[in-house]
């Protein structure tokens, strides 16, 4: 709980900061995939496929729930807000075949996952892009 108390003001600052930022979808630098289409991103994030188009397994990460970034991401991707996305997952979880992306606490945590795993895929503000990741999709692209 101490952690949450600490994090929330950070996130608030974060969000203010990132609001004007474009979101990008990133993977491990060593991943063979260089570019993803919007449909491919959707298919991975909405649980249709658990692999990249080349057959390597993919493991998507979500930013914390109710965060500005997460909401923004889904709005831009499938034109649905977080609540609808949650409703979708609630429906899909019924059969148990597909799973929602794993949720992380912060962008740093996302970055560490991206660094450690070749199959990881996540969305971050463009300003947060580091050397360990490469951009495969830009959300302002249409």
């Amino acid at each position, binding site marked *: 709980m101490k952690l949450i108390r600490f994090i929330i003001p950070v996130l608030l600052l974060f969000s203010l900061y990132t609001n004007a930022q474009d979101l990008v979808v990133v993977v491990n630098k060593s991943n063979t995939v260089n570019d993803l289409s919007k*449909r491919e991103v*959707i298919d991975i994030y*909405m*649980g*249709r496929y658990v692999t990249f188009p080349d057959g390597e397994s993919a493991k998507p990460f979500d930013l914390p729930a109710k965060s500005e970034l997460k909401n923004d991401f889904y709005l831009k*991707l*499938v*034109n*649905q807000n977080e609540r609808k996305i949650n409703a*979708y997952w609630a*429906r*899909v979880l*019924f*059969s*148990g*075949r*597909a799973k929602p992306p794993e949720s992380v606490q912060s962008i740093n945590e996302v970055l560490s996952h991206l660094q450690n795993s070749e199959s990881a895929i996540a969305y971050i503000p463009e300003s947060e892009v580091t050397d360990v990741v490469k951009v495969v999709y830009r959300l302002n692209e249409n």
Partner: protein
Amino acid sequence: MKISQKLYVRVALSIAIVALLVSLATSLFSYISGLEERKTTNYTLVKQLAQTMQKTAAISAYLVDLELGEEISNGLLSNDLVKGVSLSGDAQMLITQGDINNVSEQVSIQLMHPFIPDTKIGMLTLYPDDIYIQQQAQKASEKEVLLMMVHSIIIIFFVSLAVNQQLSRPLQKLTDDFAKIDPSMPQTMQMLSVKKRGKDEVSRLIKGINSLMRALQQTIRNERELRTKTQELEARFRLIFEQASAGICLVDEQNMITTYNPAFKEHFVENGKTEMSSLNFPTLLNNSDKLQSLLQVIREKDNVEQLSLDIECTIGTQTKWLHCLFAKLTEQRDTVRENQETLIEVILHDVTERAEKEFQTRFEADHDALTYLLNRRAGERALNNALSECISKDHQLVLMMIDLDKFKPVNDNLGHEAGDKVLIEVAQRIKSRFNLDTDICIRWGGDEFVIAREIKLSEQESALKQAQLMLQDIELPIQVNDDTSCNVSACIGFVVGPNDGEALHELMVNADNTMYQAKENGRGQVAIFNKV
């Protein structure tokens, strides 16, 4: 009465037939339209079902999630309306459940990509269960038909009940009551009972019948009273007619008797017979020709209303005098029938006794009690009549004054009784010579007689001859008692009027004088008046 003839049954049957036909027609219509409607409704329901599952099915197709797809299919199939479900997506994604063969119609909806607009990712097809839908529709229609029938039957029952209560029963009662009435027996004409405040047609009919019967009863009662009165009156009149001592009869224009009473019959039935000899009225009486003309006169003359007459009639050997009253009968009622006969009523009494007495009285008044010749008073009247008759007819009247000779000695010697006998005998001898209807023989007084005879001019001689013969008759002996007879003679003064006197008085004086001349000439003479 057969039940099928009862009104309310017929009404009920009519209603039943109409209701059944209408029910059947309505049911058929509602069945057909209901089937179609239900089918449409069910198809709509199926479509709505599909739409309900559209999103989830789209997700399952997107995720190629067969479990979710089957879950959806099973869910849809559990609905009675759905016979088969087919969910198709990618090549790997095809779920088919239930019977999808032999189904003519299907409801398909597109499955859209949940995240990318306007992108189709599959198709959800539902196959409606036509048989079930049809059965459903049929069941609903059958139920409707059944309800309608029950409805009809209930209506029929209550309508029959109402008709029976309101119409048939009152009518039946009316008919029964009416059947009890026998028009020939007025006591059966009781008033029919009626609802006091009834204003319907039956009540009005009953009231009408009642007032008709009341009027009829009144009329019948009046008729009866009238008839009783008439009968009483008729009986009385009949009694009067039949018990009357006077004979009564009606005579028609042919003089035939049409009606008569027992008293009348009694007058004209001969002893030992039961019927009258004839029904022709005049022939029953003497002098029938005269009677016929009399009846004719009564009929024709308007001013002659009635007339009475004594008529002689001979029944068998009996002669009767009947006093007859003839009266013309006129119709007293206003309506005079055409060609009506004039009847004459005849009322007659037997007046034989009275007539004989009258006859006797008159005879005694006019005749000499001893000789039965006319007495002087009656004789004078007769002579006057005869003289004026002769003058008017230009005839002559022989008048003879007769006086007996030697009569006084007979009276004196043989007594008055012998004298009377002589006078009677002489009178008879005079009468035997002058016995014509018109001859007049008078005992003028004492031993004087007068004879008058109407003659024509040429007959004077024969009259004279007759007088002389008469004188001879008188001179024959007259037996006055068993052992005595006597002889008388007479003288005659012979005059002829009006030559010898236009007035009776003059004639008589002349005859008297002439007779005395004869006396002077001797006994047993006829002297003829000789005008100086």
